[in-house]
């Protein structure tokens, strides 16, 4: 094996060992989050701040910092976090996840936070409205889809009718806001 390959192997082993080293969640809120798909990774967060340095929203805003939000979860500020609109600043672009060296996905953690916020009645109005539209019509833009656009579609040789419908969402609608079964 050449030196380069050996070095790569050592680095890989080190990395594997590092990502295996989990911290136990320090608050019941962190434990709660760790039960969601990919939420378990919160245990790996070392609070290094790469996510905050990376995040395009943090760059433009002075209140959203993914590392800090994770810290609030780790120390158990459950009420503050769920009531706050800060978890809703994350656009799920997942740049932070791509760069995090510890295998944490802040985007998925905040997804779980928002889920809890919604089930406890803290969803922002804009969000509730969007969900209601999607679960009534089956898609988001039924209202915006006008005759004019149908004409433009026809002019381009595209089908006027889009065939979207609400058959499937009718069935799932009642499940929403009731939480998971």
């Amino acid at each position, binding site marked *: 094996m050449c030196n380069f390959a050996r070095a790569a192997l050592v680095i890989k082993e080190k990395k594997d060992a590092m990502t295996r080293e989990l911290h136990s969640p320090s608050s019941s809120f962190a434990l709660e989050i760790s039960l969601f798909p990919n939420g378990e990774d919160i245990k790996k967060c070392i609070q290094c701040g790469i996510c905050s340095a990376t995040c395009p929203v943090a760059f433009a805003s002075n209140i959203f910092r993914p590392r800090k939000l994770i810290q609030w979860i780790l120390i158990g500020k459950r009420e503050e976090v769920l009531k706050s609109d800060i978890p809703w600043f994350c656009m799920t672009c997942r740049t932070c996840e791509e760069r995090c060296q510890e295998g944490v996905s802040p985007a998925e953690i905040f997804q779980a936070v928002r889920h809890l916020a919604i089930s406890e009645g803290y969803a922002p109005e804009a969000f509730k409205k969007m969900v209601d539209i999607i679960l009534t019509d089956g898609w988001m833009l039924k209202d915006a889809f006008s005759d004019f656009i149908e004409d433009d579609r026809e002019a381009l040789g595209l089908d006027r009718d889009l065939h979207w419908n609400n058959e*499937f969402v009718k069935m799932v609608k009642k499940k929403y806001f009731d939480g998971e079964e």
Partner: protein
Amino acid sequence: MKMAIAWGCLIPTRRSLIGYEAATRKILDDLDVEIADVPNETCCAPFWMQSLDITTSLAMAARNLAKAEEMGLDLLTPCSGCFHSYKRVNYVLQNYPEVHERIDRILSKAGLNYEGKVESKHLVDFLFTDIGLDEIKKHISVDLSGLEIGLRYGCHMLKPHELLNIEYSERPVFADLILELMGITSKSYIGRYRCCGGLLRGIQDELADRILHERLVDAYNANLDALVTVCSLCHLQHDMGQRIIKRKYGMDNLEIPVIHYPQLLALGFGHSPEEIGLKYHTIPTEKFIQKAMKVGGV
């Protein structure tokens, strides 16, 4: 080759986006890729929708995948948001058996079944990986050397790359390589890989403006003939949003045409600007078309 296709909700319904669909249909036809629309497509429950309840939101995306599976086809989508949702379904099914079971139960109530066999592909990655540069090259009839564009990959087609099974996203090149086949110069400039802020629209408009302003200043300084976008949200943000930024920040000379990725390819394949809906964009595309015609000798 035959693929099922799910267009997403934005592309077929927004005036400035229908050209995306028209151009995609044209180039796939040229490349001998037969496509079958997913019947009665349902919302893929993207981004924030997934925080409502992961089981039900993923079941919505799985519904379209189940339809593709019924057809015995893999699933193509030009929408980066949909692509992300579909990839996430397969990942969660494989890794979280309890969620898998719950999704199955929802689908079965609708008389559907999804085994997880469908591979979803983003249009641009499909062109690069499944069709390939050599094949694409054979279809190029117009040389567009001299055009200088700024290509925006967007976020959701790329990240995280393990989940999406796509080239590592820090500095991707696959989409540039295709454009370079037509002689186009895909300029490297500050901010080309950075987020457009599109998902904050309607929720945090001030922040969305601030991020977009930065992106447009980057693009303006790069002196481009056009911005080229892959993601439909990125297009709405840069094309429709450009008007807002122009007024709000007093950028009087700001007028950068924003072209959809497949539209550029369709021009290279010899289609006319009329066929691919370039006149429906918010920022006029005439100047760009004139330059393309001139360099292409059409």
